C-alpha cells in the first residue's frame, strides 16, 4: 500500500513538473483566468444585476471565472494534453513500462486536481485583492463541493474526450468548441445574460451551468445552502464520463 502511494506521489510530482515547464499549458491554466477576471472586472466592477441592490455584477463574475478556470484546467488542458501525449506516442512508451496504467492515469488526475485548485485559488485571490469580492462564510461548503465535484467531473470529461481526438492538431479546437459555447450561454462571463426559456432548460442539463450555480452559491448572499440539483448534475456527468473513459481510453495513436 505504501509503495503504491509513494509511486503515485512520485508520478504526480513528475506530471506537475512536466506541466509547469510547458509555457503554453502554464499560461492557459493560470494566467488566462486571471487576465479574464481583470478584464471582466474592469468592465463590470460597478454594474448592477437587474434590480438587485445587494450585490454588483463583479460579485457573480468572480465565481463565473473560477468556473472557467476549472473548465480550462481540468477539462480542456487535460483532454488536449492527453491527446497530444497519445499522438506523440508518449502514452504508448509509458505502456511499455511496468508502471501500473491506473497509477499513471490517477497521477494525471491528481496533477490536474493540484493545478486546477491552484488556478482556482489564484482567481479567488485576485477577486478579493482587486475587487474586494470573496466567498461568504456560509458559502464555503458550496465552494468546496463545487470545486471538488467540478474538478472530478470535468477531468473525467477531459479523459473521455481525449480518446475522441485523433490528431494532436485537433486537440485545441475540439476541446474549446465543446465547452466555450456552453460557458457563454451559462453566464460564466456575464451573470446577467438573458436566454430563451427552452435554451435555459437545455443548458441546465449540462455540467457547465451546474458548476457555475454551485460556485455562485458561495458568493451570492441570497443563495440558500448548497444547490443539490446542480451537485447531482455534476455527479451524474462525472460518473458517466468515468464509465466512458474506462471503455474508450486508448494508449496508442489511432491507425487512421
Amino acid at each position, binding site marked *: 500500500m505504501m509503495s503504491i502511494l509513494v509511486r503515485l506521489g512520485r508520478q504526480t510530482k513528475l506530471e506537475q513538473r512536466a506541466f509547469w515547464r510547458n509555457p503554453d499549458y502554464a499560461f492557459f491554466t493560470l494566467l488566462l483566468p486571471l487576465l479574464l477576471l481583470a478584464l471582466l472586472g474592469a468592465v463590470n466592477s460597478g454594474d448592477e444585476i437587474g434590480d438587485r441592490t445587494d450585490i454588483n455584477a463583479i460579485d457573480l463574475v468572480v465565481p463565473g471565472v473560477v468556473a472557467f478556470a476549472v473548465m480550462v484546467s481540468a477539462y480542456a488542458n487535460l483532454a488536449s494534453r492527453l491527446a497530444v501525449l497519445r499522438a506523440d506516442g508518449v502514452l504508448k512508451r509509458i505502456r*511499455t*513500462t511496468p508502471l501500473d496504467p491506473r497509477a499513471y492515469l490517477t497521477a494525471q488526475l491528481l496533477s490536474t486536481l493540484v493545478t486546477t485548485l491552484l488556478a482556482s485559488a489564484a482567481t479567488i485571490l485576485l477577486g478579493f485583492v482587486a475587487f474586494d469580492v470573496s466567498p461568504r462564510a456560509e458559502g464555503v461548503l458550496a465552494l468546496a463541493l463545487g470545486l471538488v465535484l467540478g474538478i472530478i467531473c470535468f477531468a473525467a470529461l477531459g479523459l473521455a474526450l481525449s480518446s475522441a481526438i485523433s490528431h494532436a492538431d485537433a486537440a485545441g479546437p475540439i476541446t474549446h468548441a465543446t465547452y466555450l459555447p456552453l460557458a457563454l450561454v451559462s453566464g460564466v462571463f456575464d451573470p446577467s445574460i438573458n436566454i430563451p426559456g427552452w435554451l435555459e432548460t437545455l443548458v441546465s442539463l449540462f455540467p457547465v451551468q451546474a458548476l457555475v450555480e454551485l460556485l455562485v452559491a458561495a458568493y451570492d448572499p441570497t443563495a440558500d445552502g448548497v444547490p443539490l440539483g446542480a451537485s447531482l448534475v455534476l455527479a451524474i456527468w462525472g460518473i458517466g464520463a468515468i464509465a466512458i473513459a474506462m471503455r474508450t481510453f486508448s494508449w496508442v495513436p489511432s491507425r487512421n
Partner: protein
Amino acid sequence: MTTVVEVDRVSRSFGAQSVLRELSFSIEQGEIFCLLGPNGAGKTTTLEILEGFLEPDSGSVRVLGCDPLASGEALRRRVGVVLQESGFPKFFRVGEMIETWRSYYDHPLAYDDILDLVGLRSDEAKLVRKLSGGQRRRLDFALAVAGDPEVIFLDEPTTGFDPEARARCWEAIVSLRELGKTILLTTHYLDEAERLGDRIAVLLDGAAGAIGSTQELAQLANLRATVSFQAPSKDAEQLAREFPGLDAASETVEGEVDEVRSLTRRLELLDEHASQRAFASLRVQPPSLEQAYLALVGRQSDPMDSTPQ
C-alpha cells in the same frame, strides 16, 4: 537452450488487409534475431503483438513463457522496447528521463552504465526537445534497457542514424548480447541484419519465408560461394570437371560451388607443391545476405512478375 520468444501460426488483419499469415518462429535465450522484410511485410505488427499492443486474430505468442496481452506489468518488468515511433515529454532532460524510467523497475541498470552504453554522457542535462534525431534514438535505447530487461524488442532502432551513430548502436546491441540479453530486431538494413543477427527471418507475404543464418538463407536461396584459385593446368582442368560450376582457364580456376569444404578437401589431395599454390591463392566469397535476401524476395515475387500480360 531456453526458448524465450515463441510465435505460433499467428495471423493478423487490418480490415480487408491481411498483414500476417500463420507466422511462426522462435527465439532462443541470448540470441539476436532479426526480422527482415520489405515495408509493409508485417515486422512492426509482429512486434506490437509481442509487446501486447495488438491481439492476433489467430495463433498464439509467448514471451518468457507469458501471454503478452494477459501478463501486464509482470512481463513488462522483464522486457525492454524501442518502438518504431514514440515521443518523449518534451520538457524533460535526458538525465531526468533515464532516472524516471529507472524508477519504474525493481532492479534497474546503474544510471552511469546506461549513459555510457548509449553514449549520452555529455547530453544528460539537455532538454529532450533539443536532441537531434540520432540522440533521441539513443535515448529510446537508453529507456529500453533502463530496467535491465531479459528480452529487448528493437523496432528499426537505427533508422535515421548517421554511419557513426549506427556503428555505436551496433556496438551497444552486441554488448547487450554479451550480457546474455535476448534481442529481437526489425530492420530493413541488410548490412545491419547480417552484422548483428545470429538468425534472420525474412518476412514474405506475412509469413516467415525463410529463417536461418546468412549462410543458411543463402543455401535456401540456392546461392553458392564464389571461389577462385591457381593450380597447374592439368589439375585445374580435372577440378573443373569434378566440381560443376567451376571453370578452368589456363592455371586459374574460378566459379561457384555448393560445398566449399569438399573442394578444400580435394585441394589437399593435390601433390604438395600444387596444393600449397592452390591454398595460397584460394579466395572464397560466401554469398552475402543481400544476395540471399534479394533471391528470396525475388523468388516470392516472381509468380506475379511472370503473370502473362
